[in-house]
């Protein structure tokens, strides 16, 4: 048979790895044909919604539901008293704490769930909520974690023994009734010694403010208990559907095979949809009680004020160096404000996530990190907002400490970074705080970045600008923001990563159809990352069938293999690896079939793009399509019919993507208005599966970084009232506020990942926040700024200028 297409064309036809294949999801999303939780409509479906506390700290003296039950359309009102007999008035959190499902005698944050009104529609539910009468006795509010640690006021009476002693928590001994845990890493005494004897030490305290992932689609679910077959179906905005199934089974007692959890299309997650929320539990209970499906959907204020926040880290650091800038030691202490319950979503052994990546991209011989978690009267959460567990905090910390050290040394911070980078030949590199970095080539990336932006030219321009400013010729300063980050993603090796005891492997199951198309099912769930596009590309390259002939399905626990879901940039490192490995199993079987069909020995055929060829005789081949057909329809001695494979992948290590970012900003000293003139982002995420999707992820992550650095926050007043509960005050940038981004890359594959890919969805956020912040701070460096906390919104920048005496 004469082959008319060239090998190049055959490669192109697959649309495999490395090609900017258009997103297959977009046809439905751009035509309003997505299927989100709130699109689910079932016969007889009811709506549930919460009575929420107006107070941040109060005792509940009574709840009167009589008037609410009289509101037309209201069917039931659940309170903690109703859930208690089922043992469901409290639920376990992902961090080993427990959280009230409905207020059990008191409330600990504004917006806390107090009662759950079930009604025929959401309008009746809203009216029912108005009619529930709750008698509160206000208590003293603690919004500051440092005050909380000193206060006599006990926030969590449930965590204090009757004799007044304080039992240990999930992460060891607690120092005070409002203290949650102390967690540390590294060597304390040696680090202190190095710092005490150092030639130069820079010290700084910084507050990484509380913010929120704010996905466009809020959290919600539909619970449907079929009383005839005893099966519970739960549709929801879950970033980890299998984990939710297991948790629901554990707390409800319903056997796991009788629970089906489905994550339909999800409109963004960014960490907000990892945890378990009272809305899920109440909806399940309401469905069991009423025998009807029950829907719960947050509105924007519910989402911003009550479901998982991010950050809220008070960090103090010391960094030491030699006179010529070689870093010798790093010490970091964090006071972590976790709100009323510890509901952080972190692997069990890491109550502060991977904050111990805070030595960053630098060869720092000695380091010590200590984190204290504290209860306050704020909403619970502490999730990884577009980052791997607490990595944004870690990278912000080190990238600010580098700048502060550069000031102390009177040195250029680009150069300070360069002389301290871990060198290419040092990989795999074991950092002082324990992690083993898989691969990197930081110097090449840094040099490329600085050269592309003409760093020296920018500095010269900035010097000129400062002169002009001092001469009264301009009121605009120029800031050059630098950041170099190393992420730690792909949680993770089961030996050190689990959530609630569930190992953090992931999975892929592939079924090849007789005509040569396929379906792949994974344990992850896309929330906009484009898995249906990229995972098909991995498979196309591995098994030689066109990506367009491969369906990728996720999110239904009845059909998908068990996996831990999508967050922390783990999908490509873990499920992507499982996909490649499952593909290789398919290929191994295909090789035997091909050899049989070609009448040669197994070892005499080799894989070539979309076929197996006889070694040395490429005109003799069987395409994967032909092989698939034969697998089902031809009796092959010694080989089972069918062509399927499943792989559960437990990664040997994390992956460590990195990048070099530069931001050039102009700042109006009088109004605090910033203008981003240029943003350059070089990302190294290892092997690149789909450059277009990478670019999209980088744009999205940078935009969320801009938001956090320049204004996005969850702020409270002294009474614990949330001041930023709507999108008027919570900054969500639009196309208008976003600059043009220049993207670039280097490729340093991960040595342990089957295809060398590292994950990219979160890198731009992790690297972006310090870059934007450093640009602001750099503009004021010539006038004496050392460190100023984010967010850098107009008035805070104005304040910075004002305090530096730049207004007359």
């Amino acid at each position, binding site marked *: 048979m004469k082959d008319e297409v060239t090998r190049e064309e055959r490669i192109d036809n697959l649309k495999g790895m490395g090609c900017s294949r258009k997103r297959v999801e977009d046809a439905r999303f751009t035509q309003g044909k997505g299927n989100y939780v709130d699109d689910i409509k079932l016969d007889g479906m009811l709506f549930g919604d919460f009575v929420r506390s107006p107070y941040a700290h109060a005792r509940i003296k009574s709840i009167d539901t009589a008037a609410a039950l009289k509101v037309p359309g209201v069917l039931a009102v659940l309170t903690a008293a109703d859930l208690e007999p089922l043992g469901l008035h409290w639920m376990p959190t992902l961090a080993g704490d427990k959280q009230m499902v409905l207020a059990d005698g008191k409330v600990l944050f504004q917006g806390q769930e107090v009662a759950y009104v079930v009604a025929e529609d*959401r309008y009746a539910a809203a009216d029912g909520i108005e009619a529930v009468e709750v008698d509160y006795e206000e208590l003293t509010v603690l919004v500051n974690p440092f005050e909380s640690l000193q206060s006599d006021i006990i926030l969590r009476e449930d965590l204090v023994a009757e004799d007044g002693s304080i039992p240990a928590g999930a992460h060891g001994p607690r120092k005070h009734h409002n203290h949650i845990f102390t967690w540390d890493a590294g060597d304390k005494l040696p680090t202190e010694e190095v710092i005490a004897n150092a030639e130069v030490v820079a010290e700084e305290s910084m507050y990484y403010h509380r913010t929120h992932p704010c996905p466009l689609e809020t959290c919600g679910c539909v619970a449907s208990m079929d009383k005839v077959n005893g099966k519970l179906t739960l549709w929801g905005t879950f970033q980890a559907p299998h984990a939710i199934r297991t948790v629901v089974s554990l707390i409800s007692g319903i056997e796991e095979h009788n629970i089906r959890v489905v994550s339909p299309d999800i409109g963004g997650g960014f960490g907000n949809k990892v945890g378990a929320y009272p809305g899920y539990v109440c909806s399940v209970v309401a469905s069991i009680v009423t025998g009807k499906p029950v829907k719960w959907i947050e509105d924007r204020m519910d989402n911003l004020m009550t479901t998982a926040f991010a950050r809220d880290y008070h960090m103090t650091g010391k960094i030491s160096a030699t006179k010529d800038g070689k870093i010798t030691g790093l010490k970091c202490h964090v006071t972590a404000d976790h709100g009323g319950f510890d509901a952080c979503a972190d692997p069990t052994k890491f109550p502060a996530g991977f904050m111990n990546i805070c030595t960053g991209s630098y060869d720092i011989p000695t380091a010590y990190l200590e984190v204290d978690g504290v209860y306050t009267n704020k909403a619970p959460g502490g999730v990884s907002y577009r980052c791997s567990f607490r990595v944004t905090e870690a990278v912000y910390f080190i990238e600010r400490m580098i700048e502060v050290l550069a000031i102390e040394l009177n040195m250029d911070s680009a150069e300070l970074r360069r002389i301290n980078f871990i060198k290419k030949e040092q990989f795999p590199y074991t950092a002082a705080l324990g992690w083993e970095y898989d691969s990197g080539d930081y110097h090449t990336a840094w040099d490329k970045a600085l050269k592309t932006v003409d760093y020296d030219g920018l500095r010269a321009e900035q010097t000129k600008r400062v002169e002009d400013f001092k001469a009264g010729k301009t009121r605009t300063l120029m800031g050059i923001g630098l950041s170099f980050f190393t992420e730690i993603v792909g949680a993770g090796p089961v030996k050190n990563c689990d959530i609630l005891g569930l190992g953090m492997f992931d999975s892929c199951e592939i079924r090849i159809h007789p005509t040569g198309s396929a379906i792949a099912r994974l344990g992850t769930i896309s929330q906009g990352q484009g898995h249906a596009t990229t995972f098909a590309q991995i498979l196309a390259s591995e098994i030689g069938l066109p990506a367009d002939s491969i369906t990728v399905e996720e999110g239904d626990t009845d059909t998908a293999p068990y996996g831990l879901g999508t967050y922390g940039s783990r999908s490509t490192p873990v499920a992507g690896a499982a996909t490649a490995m499952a593909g290789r199993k398919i290929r191994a079987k295909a090789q035997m079939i091909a050899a049989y069909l070609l009448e040669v020995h197994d070892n005499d055929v080799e894989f070539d793009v979309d076929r197996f060829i006889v070694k040395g005789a490429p005109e003799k081949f069987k395409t994967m399509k032909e092989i698939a057909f034969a697998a089902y329809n031809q009796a092959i001695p010694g080989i089972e019919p069918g062509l399927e494979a499943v792989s559960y992948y437990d990664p040997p290590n994390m992956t460590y993507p990195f990048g070099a970012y530069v931001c050039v900003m102009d700042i109006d000293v009088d109004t605090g208005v910033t203008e981003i003139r240029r943003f350059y982002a070089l990302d190294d995420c290892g092997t690149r599966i789909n450059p277009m999707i990478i670019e999209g992820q980088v744009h999205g992550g940078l935009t969320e970084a801009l938001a956090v650095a320049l204004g996005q926050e969850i702020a409270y007043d002294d009474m614990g009232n949330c001041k*930023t509960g709507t999108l008027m005050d919570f900054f969500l940038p639009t196309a208008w506020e976003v600059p043009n981004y220049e993207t670039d890359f280097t490729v340093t594959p991960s040595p342990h990942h089957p295809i060398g890919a590292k994950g990219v969805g979160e890198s731009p956020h992790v690297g972006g926040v310090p870059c934007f912040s450093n640009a602001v701070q750099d503009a004021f460096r010539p006038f004496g700024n050392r460190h100023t906390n984010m967010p850098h919104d107009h008035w805070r920048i104005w304040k910075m200028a004002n305090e530096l005496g730049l207004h007359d």
Partner: protein
Amino acid sequence: MIPAAFEYYRPQDMAGVFAILQEHGDDARVMAGGHSLIPMMKLRMADVPHLIDLQDVGGMSDVTIVSHEVRIGAMVTQADIIDNTELTAVVPILREAALQIADPQVRYMGTVGGNIANGDPGNDMPGLMQCMDATFTLVGPNGERGVQARDFYEAAYITAREDDEILTAVTIPLHSGGYAYEKQKRKIGDYATAAAAVQITKDNGSCASAAIAMTNLSDTPVYSEAAGVALVGGTLDDTSLKASVAAMLNDIDPTEDNRGPIAFKKHVAGVILRRAIERAWSRT
């Protein structure tokens, strides 16, 4: 974010509006574009058991331009203002300001009348109307009257309009000279941190007249006569600009909120006014 139950009316003429207003008194309210009122109802900060939609009441959507003034119907939307080239030719500041209100989606619905009648100090049209010395036409069951924009605002959400009166139109005298509407906001779609409306005329190289109004810096828009007077007769050198800013700062009374503390707002108000004056002057 679900409003309390309400009755919805869509009368076809003014008589129908008055009949409902009379029957339900305080419990009834008119709605124009709904982009201030509906959010308040959803937050349950406004309770409107009887909601009267003005969309089908005719006669309030015209823009009439005559030699010395323009008359803009209350139901003309902010988007209409932006698109109306004839209007822009004679009152360019209207378009400059409308483009800085909210975002395109809101501007397609939000009306000039609603923006003016609302009484929210954050609205941009009131200060603009004060700067241009507009007159508001109010029609009630007992007839029609005109109120000067500069006399209309009493406190936040409290205006000279009686509950049973409808704002039907605004009349704006035509100005010669330069103009500017300068606004600082945190992001697209945001209300002003500070905004300034300036109309200015020049005669023989010096300032002949100046009208200045400020937005979102008090519980009402602030027409600062003194700030305008400070410019008249001068050539807008640094001294007169400073005097004008100082006079304006005397008239405003900002409060602290998420946009920033009082000292910041005052500082920005001064910067914004200065820029507005300079831009207006450059256009004379």
